[in-house]
């Protein structure tokens, strides 16, 4: 769109002109009369060619080096090794030793001070962490800077305070740490997921072996540097790199007392089976197909923001994404018209540009999966609406997309796409909305938009989902427990409830 087209609808009447009706064209023009200049964040922090595993407080070289790729440029960011059984074993032994000789018996107040220091140092290095996260993951810098990294620091600070107050956490019970936790985390929020796993585990007195996702290992190495500088004793946190095979070695290692996994429901089920009969504790944060329900009395303009936050935050790579929009039929047209205009203002592109709203899809494999499901949506007869915006020639990008004419039987209404693709369905009554929202094996999140407080409470109560957002979506806080119902997993992360998976509770 250019300025000429602007003038086509704007007769630019003088300020003293009479009626300024332009009856024929009622289209808003989101154009380039005032283009935002590029505002790229620069990376001034060195990235090494290779980073080893982090075992017993030191970076240790390994074998089977593989590349982590910047998904926005397809350039290699760094290399990490693949942990085999020997490396995993060494990591577990280091964690066990640290648990038995140091961390378990360290007074909670002292553990808390170290966690607090970690949180502070994350704040101190926040810009660096944000930039590196965006480079390795592809998420827009405004999100890594304003959402991920502040939440990472807040998570450590929150749990730091629990370390010496555990006896108050579960009334009437005595609590003790469990031992060595084996943790496997995904690529969508590399640092944040690490914080969600490590902070409560350490606050409760456990030690950790953690495996970051193979496509996003970079920022974990920075976190390890912070652990060292913050005075975390060697072996309390150990990091092993690798893909699914390494994750399998870790969760099945007999020296692990507790497994925590965030990832797909498919892999979660494999882990649950693998741990059957072992007596090892397990928590799972799995997939979702969250419903974002907009009632006819909703604040519609804010609901549009909730839809955007629900499905286009972090390229839709969010397990609790609001990937199903359920809109009351009598406001569906009005809402979607507003959504179209809002979508037109989204800026897709360079994750490091401070004005980018939607960055890169994390990997080629994920992009192909999104392509496949979107093709299925079209083949099954749903109507695709996609922002006609330019996207970079290199890198993995996908335009924000939504489908109308979707029914419960469509794959795009049932399967987790894990991309910026929304399925829109309509409903007629609150009961029907509840029934549609709950008609899924998943149960992680839901959003409700209404101006009526009593309705927010009653529909929230009817949702079979672990997190329900009233007039907001994808809001997170270290004090707010997060986790799923049904096939979205079990156990909670965050808040007081987030301590439970890491404590032996007796009484």
């Amino acid at each position, binding site marked *: 769109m250019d300025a000429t087209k602007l003038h086509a609808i704007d007769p630019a009447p003088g300020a003293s002109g009479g009626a300024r009706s332009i009856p024929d064209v009622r289209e808003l023009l989101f154009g380039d009369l005032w283009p935002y200049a590029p505002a790229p964040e620069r990376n001034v922090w060195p990235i090494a060619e290779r980073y080893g595993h982090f075992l017993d407080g030191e970076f240790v070289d390994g074998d089977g080096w593989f590349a982590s790729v910047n998904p926005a440029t397809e350039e290699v960011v760094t290399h990490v090794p693949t942990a085999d059984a020997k490396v995993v074993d060494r990591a577990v032994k280091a964690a066990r030793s640290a648990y038995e000789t140091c961390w378990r018996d360290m007074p909670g107040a002292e553990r808390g001070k170290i966690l607090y220091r970690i949180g502070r140092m994350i704040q101190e290095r926040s810009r660096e962490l944000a930039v590196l996260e965006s480079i390795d993951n592809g998420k827009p810098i405004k999100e890594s800077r304003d959402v991920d990294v502040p939440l990472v620091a*807040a998570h450590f600070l929150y749990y730091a305070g629990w370390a010496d107050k555990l006896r108050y956490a*579960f*009334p*009437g*019970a005595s609590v003790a740490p469990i031992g060595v936790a084996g943790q496997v985390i995904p690529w969508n929020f590399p640092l944040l997921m690490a914080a969600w796993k490590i902070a409560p585990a350490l606050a409760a007195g456990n030690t950790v072996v953690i495996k970051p996702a193979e496509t996003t290992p970079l920022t974990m190495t920075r976190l390890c540097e912070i652990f060292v500088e913050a005075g975390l004793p060697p072996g309390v946190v150990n990091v092993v790199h690798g893909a699914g095979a390494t994750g399998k070695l870790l969760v099945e290692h007999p020296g692990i007392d507790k497994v925590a996994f965030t990832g797909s*429901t498919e892999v*979660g*089920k*494999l882990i*649950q*089976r693998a*741990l*059957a*009969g072992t*007596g090892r504790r397990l928590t*799972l944060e*799995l997939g979702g197909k969250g419903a974002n329900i907009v009632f006819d009395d909703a604040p519609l303009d804010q609901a549009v923001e909730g839809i955007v936050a629900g499905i286009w935050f972090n390229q839709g790579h969010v397990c609790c994404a609001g990937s199903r929009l359920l809109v009351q039929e009598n406001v569906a047209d009005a809402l979607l018209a507003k959504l179209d205009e809002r979508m037109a203002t989204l800026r897709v592109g360079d994750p490091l540009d401070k004005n980018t709203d939607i960055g890169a899809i994390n990997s080629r494999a994920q992009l192909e999966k999104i392509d496949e499901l979107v093709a299925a949506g079209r083949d099954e007869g749903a109507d695709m609406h996609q922002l006609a915006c330019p996207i970079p020639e290199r890198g993995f990008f996908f335009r924000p997309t939504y489908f109308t004419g979707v029914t419960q039987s469509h794959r795009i209404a049932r399967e987790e796409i894990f991309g910026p693709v929304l399925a829109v369905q309509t409903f007629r009554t609150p009961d029907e909305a509840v029934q549609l929202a709950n008609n899924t*094996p998943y149960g992680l999140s839901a959003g409700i938009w209404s101006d009526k*407080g009593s309705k*927010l*409470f009653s529909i*929230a109560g009817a*949702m079979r*989902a*672990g*997190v*329900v*957002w*009233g*007039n*907001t979506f994808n*809001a997170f*806080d270290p*004090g*707010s*427990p*997060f*986790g799923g*119902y*049904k*096939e*979205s*997993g*079990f156990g*909670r992360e965050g*808040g*007081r*409830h987030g301590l439970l998976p890491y404590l032996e*509770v007796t*009484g």
Partner: protein
Amino acid sequence: MSAARRKRSGAPERVPVAKTYKLYVGGAFVRSESGQTSRQTDPEGRFVANVSKASRKDFRDAVRAARAAQGGWARKSAFNRSQILFRIAETLEDRRSLFEHTLVEQGGFAAAEAAAEVSSAVDRVFWYAGWADKFTQVLGNVNPVASPFFNFSMPEPMGVVVLLPSLRSPLVGLVSAILPAIVSGNTVVALVDGELLTPALDLGEAIATSDVPGGVVNILTGRHAELLPHAAAHMDVDAVGLWSADVGMRTALQTAAADNVKRVRVHDDPERAAWRDPAAESLYRIDEFVEIKTAWHPIGT
């Protein structure tokens, strides 16, 4: 009921009417669809009764009944649920001579132990009943988030819970499994196995006369070994509790449970006396069959 009393010779003075032990499903007492029974004998091996032996299809029907009843049970006010559960304690107390008699005659309990077992069962029910309108206050909380939202976490029932209770503690073990699950609004299917099955079905009758809506508690007598695979694999079961140290059972259960990410809680099955110890009752038995839901409500004008 014990076997009919007989005179050593001659005609009986009176022939007692023997009880048919049936499964308790959906508020009704039904025979097994399989037509099979197990022989309940006393410690000397004498015949006591034929007890319905639940099949896979009986289990399926019980899950259906439990699912149908769950929403209504969970929607009752916490106060109302607690009143109904207290009523179970009243009914049990009222029938204590029946249970004591059964424990002694059929289970070989000494009279004193039978009395202790029944007292403990009544007290256990009473203890959990009182939690119905309190556990959310202790297990839930308001979270002080850094944005203008009223954010709170609340325990909610998981849904349909299948229980494989103690093989050793025929009454206290059973109520210690059922009560913490239903307190929060779950409905249960209890699969009762062991040497003494009849108190479980008598318990069903007590529950049925305590204002507990049909389907909230379903009691099937049968063989854990036969029913466990079905319980573990049933896709409309939300959680399973198993009281057994048997690694084979635990493994089988947890393996199949993964098909729909069931919550599986396993505990050991201690000696009878330990079941009666007040230490065996815990808020955290309620906690293990709830989901924590966190809701964000905006604070604005």
